[in-house]
């Protein structure tokens, strides 16, 4: 990403990132910080939008844990984007359904709006080149194999 933006713009982006980092309140040990998707260049990223009140999300977590474990070495990074307005609700959920993948918090909904989330849960598959490959609306247990096949195909690139 950085190479495609001019020097002046790069400085601006870094400044914005710094300002936003400083502006954050909350326990530094818990704040998952900003979602900088740059870090994942060359990896296949699954961005999964979930919430504690979303029942199908409970079915998706064990599967996502399995995928992260199975394909992490091949470059798969699953990021769960929590949409709860009260993050403590997410904590309660995570106690019952622990996540073995990265969790970030988007209580303001900015990231969800950016990705035009129209269903809960939604997951976006982003290829190694940073381009969005696919979007899944909802999570169907019966489609787990299909979801996995798409990941395998995307990881091959």
């Amino acid at each position, binding site marked *: *990403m950085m190479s*495609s933006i001019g020097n002046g713009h790069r400085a601006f*982006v870094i400044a*914005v*990132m710094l300002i*936003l980092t400083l502006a*954050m*309140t*909350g*326990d530094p040990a*818990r*704040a*998952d*910080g*900003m*979602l*900088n*998707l*740059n870090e994942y*260049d060359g990896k296949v990223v699954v961005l999964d939008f979930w919430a*504690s*009140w979303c*029942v*199908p999300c*409970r*079915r998706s977590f064990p599967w996502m844990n399995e995928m992260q474990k199975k394909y992490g070495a091949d470059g798969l990074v699953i990021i769960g*984007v929590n949409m709860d307005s*009260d*993050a*403590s*609700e997410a*904590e*309660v959920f995570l106690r*019952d359904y622990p996540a073995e993948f990265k969790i*970030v*918090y*988007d*209580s303001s909904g*900015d*990231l969800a709006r*950016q*990705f035009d989330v*129209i*269903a809960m849960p939604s997951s976006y598959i*982003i290829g190694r080149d*940073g*381009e*969005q*490959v*696919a*979007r*899944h*609306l*909802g999570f*169907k*247990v*019966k*489609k787990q194999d*299909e979801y996995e096949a*798409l990941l395998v195909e995307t990881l091959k690139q």
Partner: protein
Amino acid sequence: MYETDKEIPMSRKNSKSVAATLTTATCALLGTTSTTPVNAQEEDEWELDTALLYYNEDGNRVQDISFKMLANRNFVDDRVLSLSLGVDSLTGATPIGAIPFAGPQTFTSPSGNQVRTTPPGEIPLDPSFLDTRVALTANWQQPLGRLSSFNAGLSASSEYDYLHLGANFKLSRDFNKRNTTVSMGLAFAADELDPVGGAPMPLTPMLDVDDLSNRMGNQNKDVMDVVLGVSQIINQNLIMQFNYSFSSSDGYLNDPYKIVSLVDPVTGDPVPRIPSPGVDGPSHEYRFESRPGERTKHSLFGQAKYYMNGKVLDASYRYMTDDWDIDSHTVDVRFRWPIGDRSYLEPHFRYYTQTHANFYRTSLDSSLPLPSYASADYRLGEFDAITLGLKYGWKTESGNEWSARLEAYSADGSVPANLLIGSNQGGLEMYPDLDAIIAQFSYSFGW
């Protein structure tokens, strides 16, 4: 082709180069960890709701004790099988439609085997009411594509003189990011009546003991219901629903046990009758009621549920009109008030009012020809009813829920002056007001 829930962006507009996405601040705001149970919808495979109900009407009228159970079996990917069972044990008496009178009145029982006498001044009741009713339903729900769902169900109930069989279907579709849901439902019922002693021919007299000459065989009644509805989420805290319903009934719509008194046009007193020699029978002239063989109803229903910081206000209104000229309005309000994290109090208020059917008659003038239809059934009369109730619910550590509710139902009728006949009826209780207690204890659990 791609499935609806897996979309690969085709246009440049959709193709977001994630790398070009502005870094987004996604910070956690720490709130105090709440002890609220994880959201209410636990993903149990089986969910069971059970209830014990006690219903009692003042004045030795109907008493009902029942047990009901609703079981939901959740299958993978939002498919649900629902099964319900209800067992009712009904005892007590119900007004038979004859007017009270200064003297005693004797009636032949529905079976025709015996007579019963009502003391002077009392509203005649049929005390031979003893019935056990079993009702079953089964319902299957499943998604149809991402935004639609389908429901299909069967229902059946049986009591000693009544059998019901029914089927229902429903289709729902979501719009506007699932903020709007449009639904359509269809229900069919085929009921069969086998009244004690046989269904009496409408408008024929109540006869002496052991005289069943005016009785007919089994009777049928078919009902079709159509419901169209739309629900809309207004904002984060408010959801509303509007339904239009249409109902059409066909067949034997009479109550086989209800009668109408024949009265003297001058006094308004029941016309006396002398039974055949050596036989018991009714003391006065009574005619079995007669209702039209068809009924069409239209209803409009609106509901709003509003969340206010933990409290929930549920208010609804229903308007009903039919071709028997009955109009009704129902206002129902519930307010749920949480107490701590695990329990709640919910007061309930309901107001109901209806106009009488165009063939509703408290009594019939014996000097005039009988009308085609006539019924003194208080349920077709003009009345206002109020329900006041309170419910208390609490949730255990394991997520199971108990609740108890107590309600008082009071129906107060009025008889229009033009339905009164003669000079003596003004001082009588021509409409049997109703006061009832409803007590229910419920337990819900899952595994």
